[in-house]
């Protein structure tokens, strides 16, 4: 028996976007010594997320591609309200996250779930599969106090392809792929509408990755879920995402339909990523690293474009103005790029 009808997010499906993030910023201040604090030296910030905007439509899988330092994990945590943002708006079904009190937040959690990268540490090591899943059911009043939850469990097992003889096992008795399925089942147990998947296949063997990706697509199709799929792996994202956004040092540098972005990448970073992507094919044997210079990522970047220190196409104006996302062609309306120089505008593929 659902007890929160009044706060059930968007029962009539009126909101245009399931998730809308506008100019999100999350900065972490670097710890200063007592001395510097006394001297009132202004604090330095790590701009983990520095003005990110995107929209997620109903039933859509949006791929977020970023490497280390891109801010993708911080973005995920802020989006799921595990951390507070410093600036910017997050709207779920048109409802502002900041306007929700703790009760509203608790209700929101029924619509929004997250699956983490490491399936081993994201499951409670001391609970069996059955206990972990039934607990969710009981907390969210899907199951009564004395309900064994048999139907509940078998539905979740069916959805995630788990066999029922795993229900009494603890995480350490499961394989990586099975654990990740349990984590997905647990997220599905609250019947969410939006799922944020943070590198969910990165820790799995290749032969298992494809199983989980197929599962994700099936779930999206069956339950009409919307997903934010975060990964550093271009191939993985290209297999599941309808649209992609590429992040670099806290900002989105390129976004658009997956096909458009990967067939005619415009941002130098996107091209570097594509160039560096290796697959077991004879063609990939000839690749080499010409697309970027080797400047370490942890150098503080002064102004303008964050990628300028590594970009071989960088010009003087790149350090002056922060680039903003702009549409490049009316043929691809969703395809936007944040680059002053746009060196590839008149060529399509590499």
């Amino acid at each position, binding site marked *: 028996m659902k007890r929160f009808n009044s706060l059930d997010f968007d029962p009539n499906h009126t909101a245009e976007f399931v998730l809308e993030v506008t100019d999100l910023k999350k900065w972490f201040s670097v710890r200063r010594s007592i001395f510097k604090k006394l001297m009132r030296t202004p604090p330095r910030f790590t701009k983990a997320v520095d003005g990110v905007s995107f929209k997620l439509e109903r039933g859509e899988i949006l791929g977020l591609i970023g*490497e*280390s330092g891109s801010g993708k994990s911080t973005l995920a945590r802020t989006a799921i309200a595990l951390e507070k943002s410093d600036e910017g708006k997050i709207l779920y079904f048109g409802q502002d996250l900041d306007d929700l009190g703790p009760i509203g937040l608790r209700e929101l959690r029924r619509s929004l779930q997250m699956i983490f990268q490491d399936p081993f540490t994201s499951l409670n090591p001391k609970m069996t599969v059955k206990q972990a899943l039934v607990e969710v059911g009981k907390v969210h009043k899907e199951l009564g106090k004395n309900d064994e939850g048999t139907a509940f469990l078998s539905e979740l097992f069916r959805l995630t392809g788990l066999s029922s003889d795993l229900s009494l096992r603890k995480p350490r008795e499961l*394989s*990586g*792929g*099975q654990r990740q399925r349990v984590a997905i089942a647990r997220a599905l147990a609250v019947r969410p509408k939006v799922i944020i998947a943070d590198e969910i296949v990165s820790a799995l*063997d*290749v*032969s*298992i*990755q*494809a*199983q989980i*990706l*197929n599962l994700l*697509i099936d779930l999206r199709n069956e339950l009409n879920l919307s997903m934010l799929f975060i990964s*550093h*792996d*271009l*191939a*993985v994202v*290209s*297999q*599941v995402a309808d649209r992609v956004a590429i992040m670099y040092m806290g900002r989105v540098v390129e976004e658009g*339909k*997956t*096909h458009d972005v*990967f*067939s005619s990448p415009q941002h130098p970073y996107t091209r*570097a*990523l*594509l*160039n*560096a*992507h*290796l*697959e*077991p*094919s*004879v063609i*990939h*044997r000839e*690749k*080499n*690293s010409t*697309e*970027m210079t*080797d*400047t*370490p*990522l*942890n150098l503080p970047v002064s102004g303008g474009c964050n990628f300028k220190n590594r970009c071989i196409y960088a010009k003087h104006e790149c350090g002056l103005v922060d680039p903003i996302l702009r549409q490049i062609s009316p043929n691809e309306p969703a395809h936007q790029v944040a680059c002053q120089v746009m060196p590839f505008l008149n060529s399509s593929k590499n």
Partner: protein
Amino acid sequence: MVSSNDRRTEELLRIEDLVVSFPKENMEIAVLNSINLSVGQGEIVGIVGESGSGKSIACRSIIGLIPKPGRVSSGKIMFKGKNILGINKAEERILRSTQIGMIFQDPTSSLNPVFTIGDELVKTLVNSGTSSKNHAVQKSIELLERVGLQNPSERIFMYPHELSGGQRQRVMIALALACKPSLLIADEPTTSLDVTIQLQILDLLLNLRKETGMSILFVSHDMGVISRMCDKVAVMYGGYIVEFATTDSILRFPQHPYTKALISAVPKLTLDTQRVRLSTILGEPPKSSNLPSGCPFGPRCTSRQTSCSDLSMKLELVSGVHFSACPVERSL
């Protein structure tokens, strides 16, 4: 026995029928089952496999770094014609410091955080007798330049935590190269690096091979990286080598069902707007304590036959230098 028939290259390393096992409850569990492999002078040989395949143990057994209580049960490891299994500690130390270098996956935990990278390099150079104290600092700077680290004369005063992951890995390579080894063992050296940095490190290793003629044994789970780097590849599964061939041959004409399944299961960059189901391998990789009899891939193999549970898993020559342990599927 597998060896490179290429007469130009001398054989630097040859692993013969190596078996490594771990004792468990009065039994010996084999994690490496009689593997045979060879690396020629100036060759880059790759070992690819998923978790539990035994690839890490294989490369660690060469320099005696098998974690206890594992041990070599039988077999030989011939390095420059001499069996290096069972040599005494002193000889092992010399081997590790002058002949064989090793780089690991996580440069963060492999570099001592208490020492500057200059200290580490100088220590390595002096202790192995490669350089005198007076010249060690200069040599260190040269080495860092060689591995592409910018501003080496400033960097030698830095501590590992002041460098990025890619830079640390370059330092690791410099340390491994310090004593001009003839063989470099690389155990997942780029796995924890960003993909753009990974490409640079791989290029660096390829250039080093070209310049110095050193051989590399490259272990990875990433088939794409292996394809880029290696002249020859050994595919491992369940503690066995199931296929061994030149990279070209394996990519064009994979023989073993596992190799074929592995290559097709790797997610590929696709421009299809239609969502096509990815090909998967049903089931999970086996644990070494629970290997099926005969071919370990049997339970997951679509071409399985009843005779597969009695298979001896010997590598048979299919064609040229292409070897496979599967008698069922042959298409060369």
